[in-house]
């Protein structure tokens, strides 16, 4: 089988994970910028991180013959400091033409605050101005529903946003249809203890259809599984879904979305 890992925080993972992913059929991995587990104290910390995402990590992945792509932003968890956010936003354009950069992400909301919304709006403006794809993080647990509503309203009210170029990630049963109904792509994240399990992800595919949906592991330094995507293929097959269905969801769908960025290329044709 073949699949794309469209959301993995590989800077937090070991080389063993790269080897396991490639062995399982991974054809490309995409890494959104995210929170480091602590708040970075200055814009220079972000410059170093963006260099890691665009220089060091692609080289590390290449040792396993795995194409590595990245998304750039200030994570919503660090959006409360508006002065720092402004400096980081001003830094991002320097990196947008790097050969592995796909767009702006993962932007969004964390605790649904006014400052987070302000910084999200600035990120969206930046993406529209530079014609970038957008990857949106939706909040955790009890904040997800409200945050998703706020995000959808903000994106839908912006005349420059094209929904087919935006993926709203970490959807669950109470948010997926709202996202799809507005014309956006939806990402289902497979986590052991939160977000979605493989059986629930396949339930959502059966109920909502397989169009404009991708699955990801969002593996990072927390409880997560870098092989969650290929493991979900087993759940699909157990229920009687065809190999074409598995390939469409795990490979062709992410390739279709990501290929809207001309820098994204995979060896296998869709």
């Amino acid at each position, binding site marked *: 089988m073949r699949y794309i890992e469209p959301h993995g925080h590989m800077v937090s993972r070991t080389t063993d994970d790269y080897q396991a992913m490639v062995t399982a059929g991974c054809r490309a991995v995409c890494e959104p910028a995210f929170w480091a587990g602590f708040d970075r104290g200055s814009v220079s910390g972000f410059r170093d991180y963006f260099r890691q995402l665009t220089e060091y990590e692609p080289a590390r992945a290449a040792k396993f013959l795995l194409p590595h792509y990245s998304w750039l932003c200030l994570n919503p968890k660090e959006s*409360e400091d508006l002065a720092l956010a402004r400096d980081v936003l001003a830094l991002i354009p320097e990196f947008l033409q790097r050969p592995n950069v796909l767009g702006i992400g993962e932007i969004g909301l964390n*605790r649904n605050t*006014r400052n987070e919304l302000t910084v999200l709006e600035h990120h969206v403006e930046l993406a529209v101005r530079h014609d970038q794809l957008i990857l949106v993080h939706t909040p955790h647990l*009890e*904040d997800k529903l*409200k945050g998703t509503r706020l995000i959808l309203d903000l994106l839908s009210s912006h005349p420059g946003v094209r929904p087919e170029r935006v993926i709203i990630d970490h959807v669950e049963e109470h948010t997926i249809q709202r996202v799809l109904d507005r014309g956006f792509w939806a990402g289902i994240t497979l986590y052991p203890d939160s977000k979605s399990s493989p059986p629930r992800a396949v339930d959502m595919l059966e*109920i*909502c*259809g397989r169009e404009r949906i991708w699955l990801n592991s969002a593996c990072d330094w927390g409880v997560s599984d870098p092989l969650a995507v290929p493991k979900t293929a087993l759940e699909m097959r157990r229920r009687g879904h065809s190999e074409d269905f598995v390939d469409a969801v795990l490979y062709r769908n992410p390739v279709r979305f990501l290929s809207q960025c001309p820098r994204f290329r995979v060896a296998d044709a869709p």
Partner: protein
Amino acid sequence: MASSRQKKSSAIRPAPRAGEIVDLGFIPVRAKLIEVAAFLDRVERHGVDGDFRCAALRTAAALLADGRPERARRILEQLSDPTTEPEPVSSGKAALGAWRSPGAGRTAPHRRR
């Protein structure tokens, strides 16, 4: 939204394997249900079942047996913040998994003894 979602023409209906769905899923789900029961017993035994999260869990669990569909969606909504206005500032804390009304005090622990 519930009924329109289920009637979507794009929805996938795989070859019927209802028996296998039960065969494969029952034991893991049985284990999770017993974990829920044991957790509720545990918080009662230790006198901390008044925590708003435990109360939210009990309320949500009632949806499991109400005979209506879309239990997962409804439980997630039950545990969600129902407000619509942005928060003035961040609490700086992580989400807890269940929403507590800002005006609500901490519920007194329910003690069986």
